[in-house]
């Protein structure tokens, strides 16, 4: 039987495997569901997956392999920007279509990429507002040392400055930093006593950082670590005790109480046994596979030009709410929510932006007072009427 072959390029081992495995699961679940309903135009989607093992250069090599050896021209994959930059020239040269289900720092557009995660304008501004209003204006930055944290911090610094805030420190660590490496910065934080910490530490070291902060007496309820990347999977690994009170801004949280999300979580649990690793990036991968399948149904062939035409402007009722691919820039209109970890290690949604936010990947200086970023309080975690 003929199938529609798609490539999956998520690391199942290595530094960023927690999050990438969750993205892989999201994509696999969507493929399963679509195939269970008869596939696309009677043919099932067949995933071909490779594990780049969190090694940046492997992503480019494996993308090439998928395209050349497996004759696949639709690929879902990547978490870190550095890995996306490896895949980008390959998909452009071979004119393949690449779905990137991860938030990133913006300032990119390729006709061959559909960007499914948030750009800084979609989550940094609401988060900065929330931190300054709820905790105070002195913020300490800690990040992993690569492009995303540096650019996120630049945006954050600008938004804070506009609101009269102050950056009390800015420190970067390698991707494999462990508790010992974080000891000195945690000491510094204890001395400087900022109102909140903005963390862009990713992967395994993120877990180490939260634990180190907790071990040194840091209390999330008083001075939280706020992040755009720390999600359900990492909170689970950090543990309830050390993660209580910390804050994340994202388009999706597992605790959203909507029919679409309940259906998504139920199916996820049936397939993978538990929903502990469901994250916003997992949801983005899931939604992107669905959007691809819808487009394929329209075009009837895997052709980059036709698929792109069908995808641009398409909308989808995702678990997070309605999303839409912006035809101006291939990025996605997304919801924006801010959630706090409760005593049981679950995110409780505190604020959300009323409508999905238009992606603006080339925004140099987001304005703090832009009305579209205004958040509204969410009663009881998340409205029950969605």
């Amino acid at each position, binding site marked *: 039987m003929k199938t529609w072959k798609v490539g999956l390029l998520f690391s199942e081992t290595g530094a960023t495997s927690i999050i990438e495995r969750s993205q892989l699961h999201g994509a696999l679940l969507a493929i399963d569901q679509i195939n269970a309903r008869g596939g696309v135009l009677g043919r099932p989607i067949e995933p071909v997956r490779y594990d780049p093992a969190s090694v940046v250069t492997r992503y480019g090599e494996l993308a090439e392999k998928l395209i050349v050896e497996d004759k696949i021209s639709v690929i879902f994959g990547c978490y870190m920007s550095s890995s996306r930059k490896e895949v980008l020239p390959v998909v452009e040269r071979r004119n393949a279509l690449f779905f990137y289900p991860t938030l990133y720092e913006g*300032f*990119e*557009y*390729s*006709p061959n990429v559909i960007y499914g995660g948030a750009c800084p304008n979609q989550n940094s501004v609401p988060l900065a507002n929330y931190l300054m209003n709820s905790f105070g204006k002195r913020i300490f930055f800690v990040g992993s040392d690569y492009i995303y944290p540096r650019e996120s911090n630049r945006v954050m610094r600008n938004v804070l400055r506009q609101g009269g805030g102050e950056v009390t420190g800015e420190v970067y660590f390698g991707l494999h930093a462990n508790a010992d490496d974080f000891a000195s910065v945690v000491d510094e934080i204890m001395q400087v006593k900022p109102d909140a910490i903005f963390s862009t530490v990713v992967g395994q070291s993120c877990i180490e950082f939260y634990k180190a902060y907790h071990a040194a007496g840091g209390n999330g309820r008083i001075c939280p670590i706020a992040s755009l990347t720390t999600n359900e999977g990492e909170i689970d690994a950090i543990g309830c005790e050390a993660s209580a009170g910390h804050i994340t801004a994202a388009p999706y949280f597992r605790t959203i109480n909507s029919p679409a999300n309940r259906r998504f979580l139920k199916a996820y649990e049936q397939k993978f046994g538990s929903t502990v690793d469901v994250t916003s990036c997992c949801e983005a991968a899931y939604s992107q596979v669905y959007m691809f399948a819808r487009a394929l149904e329209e075009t009837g062939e895997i052709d980059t030009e036709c698929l792109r035409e069908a995808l641009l402007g398409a909308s989808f009722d995702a678990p997070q709410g309605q999303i839409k691919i912006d035809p*101006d*820039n291939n990025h996605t209109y997304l919801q924006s929510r801010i959630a706090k970890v409760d005593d049981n290690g679950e995110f409780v949604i505190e604020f959300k932006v009323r409508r999905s936010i238009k992606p*603006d*990947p*080339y*925004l*140099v*200086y987001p304005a703090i007072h832009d009305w579209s970023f205004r958040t509204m309080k969410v009663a009881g975690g998340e409205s029950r009427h969605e």
Partner: protein
Amino acid sequence: MSDPIQDLRDLHALVVHPRDRSADELMQQVNRIGCNFDHFWPLPKTLPEKFDLVFIDVTDQSAHNLKSFIASSSKSPCIVAIIGYENPSVLNLIFEIDAHSVLMKPVRAAGVLSCMLMARRFQQEQLSFKKDLTKLREKLENMQKVNDAKFILMRHRGITEREAYDLIRRQAMAKRTTTTEIAQSILNAESILSNMGST
């Protein structure tokens, strides 16, 4: 100097390029970057004042037409040449029209932003160097004038250089004018007097 990155969205850009795939790619990217822009084709005679940055397809255009188009705006806008060939005659052309940066056809989205920024920075630097140069040149001329006037006074009155300068400065203060003005008057008078002597 203003910050080219910060001012990006205040720019008014113009694309002078036949309406094809390259032009579409370019305009869409300028739109994503968030600049106002207009499109003209064929090359018009004059360039409206409001444009800060102009992308021009220089293929098959004469240097003369391009230069007169660019010079028609008093604002001296930033010029990005779009070229289809990289041969010496095309490269000569972009030097001749003083382009600040270059984009190669087919235009793709990646690189447009950096190209705009490099062009802006180069142009702003050029403008500020030009301004500094004019200022320095004026200053040098003025110093030369004062020096010449000093020597005239020293010769006529048998005074020292210091005394000659003090004299010029006091005159300038009394008449509420600059030392350069006084020096110029002395030079004028000297030239009239010496001409009288020779007739």
